[in-house]
Structure formats: C-alpha cells, structure tokens
C-alpha cells in the first residue's frame, strides 16, 4: 500500500496521474436517464469505470409536524458487495451513511426540489421522495457519481397516478407531471496526497490519499454544501482553490445533465 502511495504521490508532484490525467482533469462522464422502467425517475451515471444506478420512488405519506406543507426527500445509499471487493453485506457502515447524507444535503440545502409543491393536503398528505443510490462498480468518487445520479434521476422523474378519494397510489401508472426541480447542484470532489491536490479520485487514489473535500455548487456559483473526509488536513488557501475549481467543473458537469 505504501508503495502505491509513494508512486501516486511522486506522479502528482510531476502534475501527473496513474491513468494519464492531469491533477484537475475529470474522467469522462456519461449520464443516461429512464434506465429502470419500474421507477418513475432513474439514472445511470458513469465516471470513468465508476458506475452508479439511482432510482426515485414516490409515495404519499404524512408530512413532518414542523413542516406540514412540505414534501419529504430522503436519500439512501446501499454499498452492495457486487460493486467492490471492499463492500460487505450487513448493516450500513459509516461510509454508506456519509455518502447518503452528503448526497442528501447537496440536494436539500440547494432547495433543488420545491417541496411546497409536493403538498397534497397540508398537515395530512404530501409526496415522499425516496432516492436510492446503488453503486454498480466503485472505481472511486462515489460521492460525485451519487450526487449527479440523484439530480439526473430527480430531474427526469414524474409523479405516479394518485387517487385522492381512495388514498391510493397507482405505482405502475406514471402521469406526465414532472417533479418540481428548480436548481441543479453539482458536487465535485477533490483528494489531497502529501500536499498535492487533485480532482475526481479513483479507487486506488482514495485508498492512499490523506483527505478529500467535496464541494457542491449551483449555476450562479454559490456553494450549497461542503464535506471534508479522511485523516489529513487542508489549508485555507487550498479550500479556496478547490472552491474555484469546483465552480468551474460544476458548470461543465451541469451541461451534461441539462441536455
């Protein structure tokens, strides 16, 4: 492991990466929507060899007492053992909870979804949105893949038919009503290894880097979420540099899902 760390750190000092990328070069990204016919909104995101599948499910439920006229958004991530030799079956580990909560905050705090439009009857019935993230192959940077997948899936999602009198959701019948998506937050993650910063870490880079910082930004360049992880540190100047690159790369990634 230390040999890989030495090797990757030495490469970064020369402004190079193992896969031929430059430090701030993102891998190729592709986004497909409508990939799960049973789901009213779904997406498959590929970042290099990383692949995640995201599905939205909609249901009608009771709102939280403190927000009686707002729909509810919940993001969950399942790190299934199919996707990596490092994932195990069993109860969720801190890594999968962090992934879900960071993805969730990126969407929630940017007010991506106009939750007030998801109210059916104040205090009684609102739409509940569940976003489930399943990595299919983890080659690093699941945070960005999950966030991109979640926003693409939500953007493509439509409401299923709801019979208000019978209080029944017809899960198999999709209407043409789209979810009220009003912003497109984009998460961009950086790694740091022995003082060198780089974007979009691969799994091998994640295994040896000192720390990471994820920054979610909106169209107008404002920040809506940040999260640091790992046993290393960042300086203030590094954070500000990362924010600049995150805004810029965010614009490029946003174009892919805006199509």
């Amino acid at each position, binding site marked *: 492991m230390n040999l890989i760390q030495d090797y990757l750190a030495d490469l970064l000092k020369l402004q190079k990466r193992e896969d031929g990328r430059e430090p701030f070069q993102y891998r190729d990204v592709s986004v497909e929507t409508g990939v799960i016919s049973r789901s009213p909104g779904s997406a498959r995101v590929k970042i290099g060899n990383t692949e995640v599948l995201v599905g939205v499910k909609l249901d009608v439920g009771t709102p939280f007492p403190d927000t009686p006229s707002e729909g509810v958004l919940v993001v969950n991530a399942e790190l299934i053992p199919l996707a990596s030799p490092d994932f195990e079956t069993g109860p969720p580990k*801190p*890594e999968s909870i962090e992934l879900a909560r960071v993805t969730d905050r990126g969407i929630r705090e*940017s007010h991506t979804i106009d939750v007030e439009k998801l109210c059916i009857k104040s205090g009684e019935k609102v739409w509940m949105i569940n976003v489930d993230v399943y990595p299919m192959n983890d080659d690093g940077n699941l945070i960005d893949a999950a966030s991109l997948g979640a926003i693409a899936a939500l953007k493509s999602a439509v409401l299923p038919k709801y019979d208000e009198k019978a209080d029944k959701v017809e899960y198999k019948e999709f209407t043409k009503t789209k979810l009220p998506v009003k912003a497109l937050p984009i998460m961009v993650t950086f790694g740091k290894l022995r003082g060198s910063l780089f974007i979009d870490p691969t799994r091998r880079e994640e295994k040896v880097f000192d720390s990471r910082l994820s920054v979610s930004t909106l169209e107008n360049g*404002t920040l*809506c*979420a940040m999260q*640091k992880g790992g046993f*290393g*540190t960042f300086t203030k100047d590094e954070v500000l540099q990362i924010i600049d690159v995150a805004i810029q790369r965010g614009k490029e990634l946003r174009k892919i899902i805006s199509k």
Partner: protein
Amino acid sequence: MGGIGGPEKLIVKGKRLDGRALDELRPIQIKAGVIKNADGSAMIMQGETKIVVAVYGPREVFPKHFARADRAHLNCVYDMAAFSTPERARPGPSRRSVEISKVIRDSLAPAIFLEKYPKTAIDVFIEVTNANAGTRVAAICAASVALADAGIEMRDIVTAVASGKVDGQLALDLFELEDNYGEADMPLAIMPRTGEITLLQMDGDITKDEAAKLIEMSMNACQKIYELQKRALRDRYATEGAAAEETVE
C-alpha cells in the same frame, strides 16, 4: 435551513436574539478530568450546549480485526442523550450520529500520533447531555482536551467552532434558532498552531467570498477557544487531587 415558523428576524439592530454581537462566542467553560474511570476526560459547556467526553486507551482492540499493525485504531462515538433535545431522542445510533462520529474521527485523527500506538484502540466516547446547536464542534473541543488528558501524544489540540449566515449576515457560533432558521451553517476545526483545517462541512447557501470570511472568522475564534482548552488542562494538573474529587454535575 430556512424553515417556516421561526422568528421574524434573527438579528435586531446588529444584535442576535441571545444578545450577542455577530462575531461573539457564547460563554464557554471547559474542564478536564471529569470521569474517574476514564483514562482521560473533559466536559464543555457552550451556551446551553453541554457535552461530556471520555477517552479509553490506548487499549486492546475490540473487535480484534480492527487492529492495525502500524497504528492505533481510532474509534469515536457521538451520542445524544435521550433527554438532550426538546423531543425525546431515541437512544442508540442514528444516521446523523453515525455520520457525526465519522467526521469527528476525521477531524481528531490528524492531530494524534496514531503511529505511536500500533495494535491498540483509542476510544473516544462523546455524550451530548444538553443540545443547543454546535454539538459536533463543541464535542471536538472537549474530545481533544480529553485525549490530551489521557496522555496521548498529539501534534496539537484540535479546536472547532461553527459559523454561518443568518438574516444575510455572517455570524459566529450559531445557537439553535439560528441553526434552524438561518441560511447556512459551516462547522470548522483546525489545529491552531499551524491553522490546518481538519473538519470542514457546510450546508446552506453562500458565495465563495462568504465562505472565505466564515473560515477567517471561525479561525480567529478558535484561537480564543484554544486558550480555554489549554487552561483546562493546566488547571487539571495544577490542582491534581482536588480536581479529581469533583465529578460531573
């Protein structure tokens, strides 16, 4: 952030609803050595927020497969007591507490010479007994004092504070109303000697310039908290014996 049902204004005539100025910390008290059974411990009161931290270790690792040949296994558990919040908090881990435990671990680890304690575990147990915002950052402040109290070798004490945006203005050390109804919240931890950032989270809506200002504001405040942490450790050992008689209220 920005829920309904909050107060109309959070800042009135330049003062916050609890009477503080925008760049003013809540009153903070830190005390080391509050739990006799622990190898190291500390308590922090920051406004109404009250947290107790115990450190056990370096000790045998359990479960055994967590043991690392080249360094200590650092385990942090953040827990909210059932009575610490207005509505009863269900005891046991929640998704929130699991994530906070992880970010606290990531914020303390850079300061600890983990490589000096191979094949051992260092357990940090954090109990929030009364919660009024800023619990993760207060927990970090108390935990690093508890680690030092346990005699664990460290590069520096980690100091943390949250700041954010309230009614369009940048404010230090948010309390509950501001945390719930403000526009943004940014917890930050540093090692004050070098200024290296060991925890950075943010949610809300801010510009890059505001982020830079919040980092600056929090870093300055951390220097003040740093002095309180050092004083707590000095007090503990200046009056050893006398302090050991006292326990947590």
